[in-house]
């Protein structure tokens, strides 16, 4: 199971994540969970909507960028938050299929946190580390 930390002193006005995954699937799923946790307390979001997302990109790091951007897009366009994520990702060629489980944001029930604007390329990194994968992502809020 992957993990994430919030980094101080990288993005004073925003939020920087350091994400660890035991494999690529885990890295992408953990990144999505970190993003959901940034936006809202995941325990206050329903699990009554399921979506499938398929993405491909010219490079693996761009796939991560597009993946997190897609989740921000779903938050704004349909008010959907997906705390439970199951990802199957491949490095070559870079592509993923994800099953997203969550719900429409009920502002009377949800504990709201930040409202992300965009995934930045600021100190953006995705690389193998030991037996697993590592990413650093700064979110503009």
């Amino acid at each position, binding site marked *: 199971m992957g993990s994430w930390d919030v980094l101080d002193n990288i*993005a004073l*006005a925003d939020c920087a994540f350091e994400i660890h995954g035991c494999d690529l699937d885990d890295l992408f799923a953990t990144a999505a969970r970190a993003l959901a946790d940034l936006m809202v307390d995941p325990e206050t979001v329903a699990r009554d909507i399921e979506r499938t997302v398929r993405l491909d990109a010219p490079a693996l790091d761009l796939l991560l960028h597009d993946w997190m951007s897609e989740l921000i897009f779903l938050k704004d366009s349909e008010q959907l938050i997906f705390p439970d994520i199951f990802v199957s990702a491949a490095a070559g060629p870079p592509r993923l299929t994800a099953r997203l489980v969550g719900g429409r944001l009920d502002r009377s029930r949800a504990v709201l946190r930040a*409202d992300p604007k965009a995934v930045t390329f600021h100190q953006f990194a995705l690389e193998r580390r030991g037996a697993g994968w590592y990413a650093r992502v700064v979110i503009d809020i």
Partner: protein
Amino acid sequence: MDLATPMKVRPVDDCIWEIGPDAKPGMLVPARLYASGALLAGMDAGVFEQVTNVACLPGIVRASLCMPDGHWGYGFPIGGVAAFRADSGVISPGGIGFDINCGMRVLRTSLTEAEVRPRLGALVDALFGAVPAGVGAHGFLRLDAPAFREVMVEGAGWVVRRGYGRPADLAATEGGGCLPGADPVAVSDRALQRGMNQLGTLGSGNHYLEIQVVPPDGVHDAAIAAAFGITGPGQVLVMLHCGSRGFGHQIGTDYLRRFDEAMPRYGITVRDRELACAPFRSPEGQAYFGAMTAAANTAFANRQLITHRVREVMAHVLERPVEALGLDVIYDVCHNTAKLERHVVDGEMLELVVHRKGATRAFGPGTPDVPAAYRGFGQPVIIGGSMETGSALLVGTAHAMTETFGSTAHGAGRTMSRAQAKRRVWGETLIRAMGERGIVVRAASPAGVAEEAGFAYKDLAEVVETVHRLHISRRVVSLRPIGNIKG
């Protein structure tokens, strides 16, 4: 001079520091930081790195600038100003920010604090209900795609023509609330889907809607304050800080990716991927300019719709006709844009793409595009502070036109990360403490309030004093908050 800064700077004048073009390979012009000694010493290393990276971008003229509230941004520093030749220079989304036309609007009222204070709690509650804030918020105006495309082109005027405002609101808005060159064709369907339901919403982060008051010592220039309709201490004003919401954020995201892929075709390399850019006159550059301008116009429309809601709510809560409350727009100004402007550089009048990222236009007296009512003394400038400390109104100067392409600071500037601020104070604790100091706060996210605590920002008074000393804007009025709505 031995200053403990991350790069070698030399003083060139009072509060002006320069990093020479030999500081980094590829610099085409020097970098200039506008700051008091204390503000310069407090600037993070990222500012120095980023302001010199910007100095490497093709077509930049004179210098890469950073205003006194500068701090680490993406690509450009926040507080960054850079002008590029329109004929041979670039345009970069990193010089504008994801929140295109994030900006400030201030309204004067005919009310005093004594009149508002007894109903302040009810007023802040009602405003919080009427102006959606925070994650997942959507506005009261439901538009289809063709109507939203009209907003992209017509800006605040589209909103006013449908009854959500006054013609005078447009005259008191930068560019009349509608910048030329918007191109809805250059906007993705995703941007449309993201932004269409968000007109009239505040957002989160450092965005706010505030009820403010002129403090006893708050009027610094009585003549100009009178022209703003500010008569003296105790007068209540309303200030908005927000931008183009998800629509602009998506345009920034779309074109950052598109420029990232386009740069090799133009032989452009940049030191930071967030500086992705394209020649202004290229198809990509023109498309971004058209889409960015569309987002800027929707931001004007957004602030106009919020203004309408503020008028409705204040009339209802205070049980007076809206006309009796004043609530006239003093000014609305962008602080995240790129605009085509003409400035004199080395004795030659040039058409420039002036990027201001977390920097406010500050045009001086007599400049076209400054409303007639203000043209005699300069364009109003709104500098927003933290939710605890207050804000300031200033005017642009003739000196700003020659020194900073007519630009000044936009806010206090952060000194501490959001995570650090949250470790120092609980949101609920801060809201209670502010209440005890007479500031009523309603927020969609209490944690977000902790992130915006006053101690996480630079000293606004120092920033304002510095731009005043630099003669790039002139101090007019200080304001302190009494009611705050946050995302």
